[in-house]
């Protein structure tokens, strides 16, 4: 591989890594006081309301959700970390309150599938590229030459095609 292909390969890799989650909440926090609304909202943002359809907990206006936000505040004041609060909610109310299912059991399929899809499609691309380069390298004289003279047959064919397009 020449250095230009390497350049594109590096760009490829950079872009792939670039979209890792850029907001990382403290994983093992010590008691934070005072616990601000913003902190509660940040934790609630990644949890879903257990009763409403697909509404995140920081947006949900119902009384039940207000209770749950109060619960989050309580746990934050006790010094719980985000992951501990998430685990607690999942245990209490079921997996569906998490914005991404936890990686156990059947849920592994969800984590495996995107890399599998990407890798298999890239493999198809690479395989095709390999076959072409191989085929192309075997027929050195097979680059189709542009016709040097325009014959009447060719012109007639072009005429017919153009007539069809009208």
């Amino acid at each position, binding site marked *: 591989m020449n250095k230009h292909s390497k350049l594109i390969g590096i760009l490829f890799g950079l872009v792939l890594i670039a979209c890792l989650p850029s907001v990382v909440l403290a994983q093992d926090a010590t008691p934070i006081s005072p616990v601000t609304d913003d902190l509660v909202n940040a934790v609630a943002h990644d949890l879903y309301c257990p009763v409403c359809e697909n509404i995140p907990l920081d947006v949900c206006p119902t*009384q039940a959700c207000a209770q749950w936000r109060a619960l989050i505040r309580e746990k934050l004041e006790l010094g719980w970390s985000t992951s501990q609060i998430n685990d607690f909610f999942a245990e209490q109310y079921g997996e569906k309150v998490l914005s991404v299912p936890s990686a156990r059991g059947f849920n592994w399929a969800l984590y495996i599938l995107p890399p599998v899809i990407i890798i298999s499609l890239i493999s198809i691309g690479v395989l095709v590229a390999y076959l072409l380069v191989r085929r192309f390298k*075997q027929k050195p004289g097979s680059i189709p030459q542009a016709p040097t003279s325009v014959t009447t047959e060719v012109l007639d064919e072009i005429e017919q095609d153009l007539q069809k397009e009208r």
Partner: protein
Amino acid sequence: MEPVNNNIQNEQIKKLSTIIGIAAAIVIVVGLLAALGIAMKRSANKSLVVGQDIKDFTVTSFEGETFQKSSLAGKVILVNFWSSWCASCDEEGDALELVWQEVKDSGEVLFLGVNYVDTEKDSMAFLERYGISYPNGPDMGSRISTLFKVTGVPETYIIGRDGRLAAMNIGPLTTAAEVHALLDPVLAGQ
């Protein structure tokens, strides 16, 4: 001749990949349709049907006692789903406690309150407000409400002595009479 051999190889690879591709497409499409079809069938029965068998479940009350359905065989179990944040649950708090006081000594019935998607503090406050004395426990992981296909609160299900669903009521049971209307036929039935 080299090029010809390689051409044949290329053709074989192409043929193989076409077959694999077609097989994959068929598997994906048919699998998808089958899964959607089954999911549709399952979602068609949105709630339990009277007479249906109920799978085993366990409720751990706020006091720490465990109640397992299979060990309660032969008893009539009234399972009531409620939450502190649901307005209509307020309406039935009194009625259920009243009837419980009447039937608890007979030893034939157990009232089990299942706290649906709630916080412990608020649910304890609710129980205190209505002086509920029958066991109540949280629905950990929402497993029990999934089992009973609960879509809202309050809902009441009565499991007969044979372990099957004998009666159900969606919505609040606002008077003791309503509770009796639901419960007595089951008690008498067997």
